[in-house]
């Protein structure tokens, strides 16, 4: 028996109520200003294609805006945005067309370009050169990882997300995230040690 003071709402009314309710994403200008660089950076490093990263960054915020009423605040806004971006990137990389264009795209990101972006302040020329070699080495190694390992590695070491946050963004269990992360670190570390041996 439902008490009289409780108003029963039909599913339509509930849906309308949800659409009227204010959400943390209503101030979309602030959200975009705060998180667009981060989403773009993650997509650029994941896809290694500037055009695709730009398109999917726009798409991420469009999806977030359209689905803002379904945001339940069970994770932070950046984690939620990264989750959307991850899904978009995964769908994008699944297509054969992407794989073809990745090979021929003029907007593909080269390891040397990324390494050259390292600011050279407070470093000697020699140290800057060594640092750029290390960066190029990591960039190339991450590019050879599986999509999942690469995403988790980037989320941890580029976006500085903690493992529980990565689990929330990827929808994977903590143990699985750790397992993929450790394999990625192993690969990067092995490459790094080889480079150190060559240098010495």
């Amino acid at each position: 028996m439902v008490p009289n003071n409780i108003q029963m709402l039909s599913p339509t009314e509930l849906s309308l109520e949800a659409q009227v309710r204010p959400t943390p994403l209503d101030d979309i200008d602030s959200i975009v200003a705060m998180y667009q660089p981060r989403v773009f950076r993650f997509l650029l490093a994941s896809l290694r294609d500037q055009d695709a990263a730009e398109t999917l960054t726009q798409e991420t915020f469009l999806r977030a805006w359209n689905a803002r009423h379904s945001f339940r605040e069970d994770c932070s806004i950046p984690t939620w945005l990264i989750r959307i971006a991850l899904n978009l990137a995964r769908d994008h990389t699944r297509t054969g067309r992407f794989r073809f264009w990745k090979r021929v795209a003029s907007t593909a990101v080269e390891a040397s370009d990324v390494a050259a972006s390292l600011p050279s302040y407070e470093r000697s020329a020699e140290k800057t050169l060594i640092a750029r070699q290390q960066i190029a080495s990591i960039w190339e190694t991450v590019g050879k990882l599986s999509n999942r390992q690469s995403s988790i590695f980037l989320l941890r070491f580029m976006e500085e997300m903690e493992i529980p946050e990565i689990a929330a963004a990827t929808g994977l269990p903590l143990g699985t995230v750790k397992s993929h992360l450790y394999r990625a670190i192993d690969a990067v570390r092995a490459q790094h040690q080889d480079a150190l041996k060559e240098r010495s």
Partner: protein
Amino acid sequence: MNHLTDQQLNDLLAASPRELQQMSDASELALASTHAAQCEQCGARFASMRDSLALFREAATSYAGERQHRVPAWQPPVRGFSFPPVFWTAAAAAALLAIVLPLQMVLRQSQPPAAQQTVAAVSPHPASDSDQALLDGVSRELSESVPSPLDALADPSGSASQPSQIANQRTN
């Protein structure tokens, strides 16, 4: 303690600064961290990898930042009050009428006067006169005892001669 294993090194690298601050002294992570701080070889391995990852982050951030200016600032789609589809159908019909009606009026006005005179000549009588004549005709038809198409049935004698006439025509 022996040197750090790969697993312990991975634990240290994967741990966030917050985790390293909040770890208990007896945890595996704390032991590994203490060892890395005391052992020169393990400390160098850890520091080298940690610094490389920091450089990677710095370069990737800088690279993306340089290209960020190309990405247009995202604007939410403007969605004010949206009219229902019926509204658009009605609006389209109204717009069509607004175009067609004046056009038709212009066409009528531009019709040559001769054509109008011809129309007038064909129908000299007013419409009410022709209607009256039609009604009179119908009344006349109804008032006849035998309708004209059934005259042959009404006069059997006349009808008997008709087949012979037809037969004569056939023989001729």
